């Protein structure tokens, strides 16, 4: 499959405050995004995810390096790129004063969608994102989840083959986040390439075909979810659910040189403590395990740092 994004040595430095050395927000990253895939860009807050998106979408100029997007050079053909991409920024940023319908129509006007198609396309998007009933409601009066959905709809209004989603589910309630993830999965089925930045490990694991892990402006790993998990050294283990005579439940992890040895250890401990083994599972490594292994950071760092912003 051809690459829709090719990035080489992309770098963004910001001047340091009061004579301090420059801040290396993004430091010579390289990657390629294939047509039709959901490409995850995963990392803690401040790792350089949003700066990378801002460079690739023409919002800020790289300090060094190059990128080709949909075959166009980012340095010289940024307008051609902008015509063909959709961008959902971290903040839902449509116009508070305009209705849901008018916001979609304005997006299409900016991107040159022919007048005869605008109305039908806006209605189609409202229906698809379950916002038809809110057609004439000003953006300011929509719920947070609806605002997010409408922001995604506006980014898709001109039918871009490549969509950038920057932290799409941050701050959403469970149902809205779930609904949005469903929409992203639908887009993938329709052949839209999605560049997704997120700090939610589970979200990345569920949605992405491949994931680049970025820490302190550098990509530390890039692979499929299974490929990333395969990097973990094998540590056979079982998770045992134990119950005592009073019905109290505890879940413990046992490791060994083999699964059998770990199982024996679990059974031995249960017998020694007079507890019953209710369930035994062989845990599969998660992306969180990979993140901890590759970065040396705890997975909580992602959420804790995000919570500060």
């Amino acid at each position: 499959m051809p690459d829709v994004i090719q990035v080489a040595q992309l770098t963004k430095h910001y001047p340091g405050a009061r004579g301090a050395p420059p801040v290396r927000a993004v430091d010579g990253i390289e990657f390629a995004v294939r047509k039709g895939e959901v490409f995850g860009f995963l990392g803690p807050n401040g790792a350089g995810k949003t700066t990378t998106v801002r460079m690739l979408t023409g919002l800020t100029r790289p300090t060094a390096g190059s990128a080709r997007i949909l075959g166009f050079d980012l340095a010289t053909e940024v307008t051609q790129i902008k015509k063909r991409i959709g961008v959902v920024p971290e903040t839902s940023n449509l116009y508070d004063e305009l209705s849901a319908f008018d916001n979609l129509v304005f997006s299409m006007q900016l991107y040159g969608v022919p007048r005869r198609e605008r109305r039908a396309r806006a209605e189609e998007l409202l229906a698809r994102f379950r916002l038809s009933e809110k057609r004439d409601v000003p953006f300011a009066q929509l719920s947070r989840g609806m605002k997010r959905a409408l922001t995604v709809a506006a980014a898709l209004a001109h039918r871009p083959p490549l969509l950038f989603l920057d932290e799409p589910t941050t701050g959403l309630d469970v149902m809205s986040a779930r609904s949005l993830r469903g929409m992203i999965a639908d887009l993938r089925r329709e052949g839209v390439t999605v560049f997704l930045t997120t700090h939610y490990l589970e979200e990345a694991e569920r949605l992405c075909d491949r994931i680049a892990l970025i820490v302190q402006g550098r990509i530390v790993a890039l692979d499929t979810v299974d490929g990333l998990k395969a990097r973990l050294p094998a540590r056979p283990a079982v998770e045992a659910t134990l119950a005592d005579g009073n019905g109290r439940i505890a879940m413990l992890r046992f490791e060994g040189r083999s699964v059998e040895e770990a199982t024996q250890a679990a059974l031995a401990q249960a017998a020694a403590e007079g507890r019953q083994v209710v369930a035994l599972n062989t845990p599969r490594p998660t992306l969180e395990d990979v993140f901890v292994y590759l970065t040396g950071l705890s997975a909580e760092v992602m959420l804790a740092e995000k919570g500060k912003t």
Partner: protein
Amino acid sequence: MWRDDLRGMFYIALKDLRAYYLKPPNISWGILFPFAFVLAFAIRNPGELRDLVPGLLALTLLFGTSSMEAIVIVFERRTGALERLLLAPLRLSALLAGKLLGGMAFGLTVTAAVLAIALAAFGVGSVNWPLLILALLLSAAAFSALGAFVSVAVREVFEAQTLANFIRFPMMFLGGIFVPLGSMSPALRVVACLLPLTYAVEALRAAMDGRVTSATALDLAVLAAFAVVLFGAAVRTLARHIE
């Protein structure tokens, strides 16, 4: 490229008019504010009311074009909405030109209403219409560019209002509306020569009186220069912000 830019300009102006400008409080404020000032002056000098019409038009244009425009860009930057325009396939200059057009359209609309009232009250007389239209357009462009520059030069809405008033209020009293340039001290006359409002008032006065001189051409040229320089400065400033 040009087609994309022109389309973007047009729709940005249209969106700004719908979303911000054409709200009843803006329209009434845009007309009432200059009238209130002129009325206050006219009560003291009732015989000179007709002479104040060019100044009233210039004042309406100044506040009509720049009041909202000085806020719109900084407001959209705060809400993130400006980013939508920066992501659109058009040049930065086209984006700002769209903002400029929105301010001009609103300023010219309220000024047209004031002009209609003034003409109904004092009669058409010897108005030079082509010159009047040209003077109104160039004045609106200069004032709107001033509003755009103020809006990109600051980070907060209250800063934009403060800076805009810091520029506009002295200009109102030194621009030859209430005090003729000839009556000013030489020092104040030099200051008046640095203000776009002065040239707008002079050009509009020539148009209303139907007396075109070589100085009128100079007034129009200076207004055009103000529009170009302030617009260029606004584009450069915004470009620096998004580096």
